[in-house]
């Protein structure tokens, strides 16, 4: 089976910034992404949990997308523009995909 190289970009970002990020991904030509809920966690800003909360201020979202390796750097630079002043983590991992034409 033919597998193709790709980069998996995972961005944990403040929930209030999620729409701005996904809008940027679309503008940067990312053909698809997934938004995953994050239940809670801990970091430099302390512990947090979504349990029982109704506001979005103290929540985080995970946005995951796959891109061709040659497009990853430009995308990350654009993402940094949204992330710079906010709480968040970006990680990039090597991945293999079955249908390269989709990315």
């Amino acid at each position: 089976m033919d597998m193709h190289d790709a980069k998996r970009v995972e961005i944990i970002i403040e929930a209030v910034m999620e729409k701005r990020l996904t809008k940027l991904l679309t503008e940067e030509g990312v053909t698809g992404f997934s938004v995953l809920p994050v239940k809670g966690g801990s970091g430099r800003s302390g512990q947090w949990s979504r349990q029982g909360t109704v506001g979005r201020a103290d929540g985080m979202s995970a946005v995951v997308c796959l891109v061709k390796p040659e497009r990853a750097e430009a995308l990350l630079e654009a993402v940094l523009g949204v992330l710079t002043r906010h709480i968040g983590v970006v990680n990039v991992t090597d991945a293999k995909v079955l249908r390269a034409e989709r990315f």
Partner: protein
Amino acid sequence: MGSILDLAAANLLSPIILSFALGVAAALARSDLNFPEAIAKGMSLYLLFAIGFKGGASVAGHGVDALLIGSLIAGVILSGLIPFVAYALLRVMTKLSALDAAAVAAHYGSISIVTFVAASSVLDAQGIGSEGYMVAVAAAMEAPAIVAALWLVSRSSAGAGESGGMNGELMREIMLNGSIVLLVGAFLIGGITGAEGKAEIDAFITAPFKGVLCLFLLDMGLVAGRGLRNAKGTISTALIGFGLLMPLIGASFGLATGAVLGLSTGGVALMMVLSASASYIAVPAAMRVALPEANPAVYLTLSLGITFPFNLTIGIPLYIAVASTVIGG
């Protein structure tokens, strides 16, 4: 004085306050009691719909008048004015930076809808009537404080360049915040359908209301307790002092405004509650977008961990008693 103490005692021993206290105690004791996010959200949607609808239905009886318009305008002015007072007080009383002070000030100019709902519930229990459109005043008071705080930051030399500013996207998010849309929408539905509409869904929006409010306040207690537990070292004595003093200052603005407008005793009490309360839903989200460098632990803990419990336990009966004394009834 006796009646104030009686009212305070009755309030402190009411199911809604005891539920809140249980939540705080459980969180501080590190119990695993918790509400899933979806349940909390569902309860808040129910409370917003019920309070909005009931307010609209009560307005349907006598329509739009000058007092309603005046109250809305006064609410907007109060919300825009109070952050300046809060900011000045914070800069004098505490060592907060201009940025953090402005972010905290925005919370105190805006309102806590749960405090408003709890106060409405206490007024109902006391048989004290109020203007139904105070719900609309509550919605009108959400956003101006945010604009005022961002202006304060833009004028501050320390904060210059730090504010993301009030762009169109942020303004749209604030104005179309889900809580405001539901509250105003339910108010309009109540206003359009009136007493007949209310009779149709009365069993849903009236009978379960207090029970749901108890559970929601239990959840709020858990969230507030967790916030207090995690905020050790963040909140100084001076900040606690501000969190207790500012609601009283806000309430006095509300009292003066309500009295000048000629609102009923219940209306004045609710205006005091709105002016005294601090936001912990709409404003924190707006601050995270516009002023991400401001410390959320400070404004969330102050708003939810200090001022909210104060208003719920001592503030509401105090404001009702003062309104009754000044306005009569």
